[in-house]
């Protein structure tokens, strides 16, 4: 079996995958209400196996997963309005309640002490990890006017970005215990589905139902548009992943394809499409794309589709 490797197991659309930051494995979540853990079973990575299935924690679709920076705590969030916390070989140690309805995304801060969740209830919640599965909500951020689709922390600082069905991205920080939105980015013309920082945090990538990719650059006054790639996909772009090893951005969406784009910060418009993979999940939407964060495996990319499948790709440009 060669690349891409096709992973079967889920029995409904796969919404997201999350690579471990410390070892070569990833977890996936699905409309089938389960989380699966996947590891390579051959040194050349041409075979992967599901080593665990967690299917008792959530009563509805599991939408998103996130590892803490140490790779020893996993958070899962679900349309059942809760967020699960998993420790010690995938034992559910806490269930965070508070959102009124679907929790759509979860993200850990760089220090691993803060967790952000967002929901169709238009709010973003910031939780502080107190240890031993104990979490305290320290902020309920309610500036978005519609569903909040995703959240992403800055790679070094306690700055949070959130993307919404209200077509905007908001940036948040803490002022003496009070979380506030210090900037609203309004360049997208429709729902912003996903965001990801580059490894420096000086740049932020966003993708939208408007079928475009935008890269924002940080300046003294906040984030500003640096580069735009209009009509990158022919339908909604659902996911974006910025490699933490290089300047490659991957996107995927409802047009069955995924794209590898190179970003050059010194160019006027720094986005160059290097390769487009058509029909990467056959006739299916691709919901998630994610670069492996490990330095030795930075050419590995995982995609998840409506076809219930996950694919692991080795990207050679």
């Amino acid at each position, binding site marked *: 079996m060669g690349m891409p490797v096709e992973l079967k197991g889920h029995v409904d659309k796969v919404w997201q995958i999350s690579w471990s930051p410390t070892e070569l494995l990833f977890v996936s979540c699905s409309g089938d209400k389960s989380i699966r853990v996947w590891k390579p079973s051959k040194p050349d990575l041409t075979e992967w196996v599901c080593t665990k299935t967690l299917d008792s924690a959530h009563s*509805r679709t599991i939408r998103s997963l996130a590892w803490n920076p140490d790779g020893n705590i996993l958070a899962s969030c679900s349309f059942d309005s809760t967020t699960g916390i998993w420790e010690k070989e995938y034992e559910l140690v806490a269930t965070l309640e508070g959102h009124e309805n679907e929790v*759509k995304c979860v993200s850990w801060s760089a220090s691993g002490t803060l967790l952000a969740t967002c929901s*169709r209830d238009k709010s973003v919640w910031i939780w502080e990890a107190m240890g031993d599965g104990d979490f305290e909500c320290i902020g309920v951020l309610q500036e978005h006017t519609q569903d909040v689709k995703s959240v992403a922390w800055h790679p070094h600082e306690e700055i949070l970005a959130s993307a919404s069905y209200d077509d905007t991205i908001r940036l948040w920080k803490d002022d003496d215990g009070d979380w506030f939105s210090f900037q609203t980015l309004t360049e997208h013309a*429709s729902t912003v589905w996903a965001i990801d920082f580059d490894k420096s945090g000086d740049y932020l990538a966003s993708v939208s139902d408007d079928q475009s990719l935008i890269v924002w650059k940080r300046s003294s006054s906040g984030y500003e548009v640096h580069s735009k790639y209009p009509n990158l996909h022919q339908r909604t772009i659902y996911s974006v992943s910025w490699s933490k090893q290089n300047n490659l951005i991957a996107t995927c969406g*409802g047009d069955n394809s995924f794209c590898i784009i190179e970003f050059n910060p010194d160019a006027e418009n720094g986005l160059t499409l290097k390769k487009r993979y058509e029909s990467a999940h056959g006739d*299916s939407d691709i919901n998630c794309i994610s670069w492996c964060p490990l330095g030795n495996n930075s050419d590995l990319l995982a995609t998840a589709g409506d076809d219930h499948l996950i694919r692991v790709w080795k990207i050679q440009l």
Partner: protein
Amino acid sequence: MSTLINATPTVYGINQEKQEYNWDDDVEEPLDKDEIFQLIRNINDPEHPLSLEQLNVAQKDLIQIDGNRILINFTPTIPHCSMATLIGLSIRVQLLRSIPSKYKVDIKVTEGTHQSENAVNKQLNDKERVAAALENSHLLQVVNQCLSTTIDK
């Protein structure tokens, strides 16, 4: 019974001969407008014992097919119809259950026929919203009620 949004809708004639439409079992054959219309014409309006075809909410000419892309426009009976999202969701569910998943379906209110056109369209075409709606058992029950009239017609 609660007050109806549109108590006296105009009822239109239906095309009788097309009720005899023959299904094409050849899977290689792409779907055409007739087949799509056949699937949605008998969906029941959420507040009347009338079909979307009888109310002119669904019309064959409002269906466009381009390769694997299908655009269905529907026309609410009144511009402030609060049932518009539910009607659109019923059309979406009917197609999710009936046609191959390779088809990418967009469902939109006919331009200029609803005061919240953009909001309704956005909701109907957000797959995450639709997936969550279909896990809501109450909503699903209402949708199934609208779709119950599409069987055996």
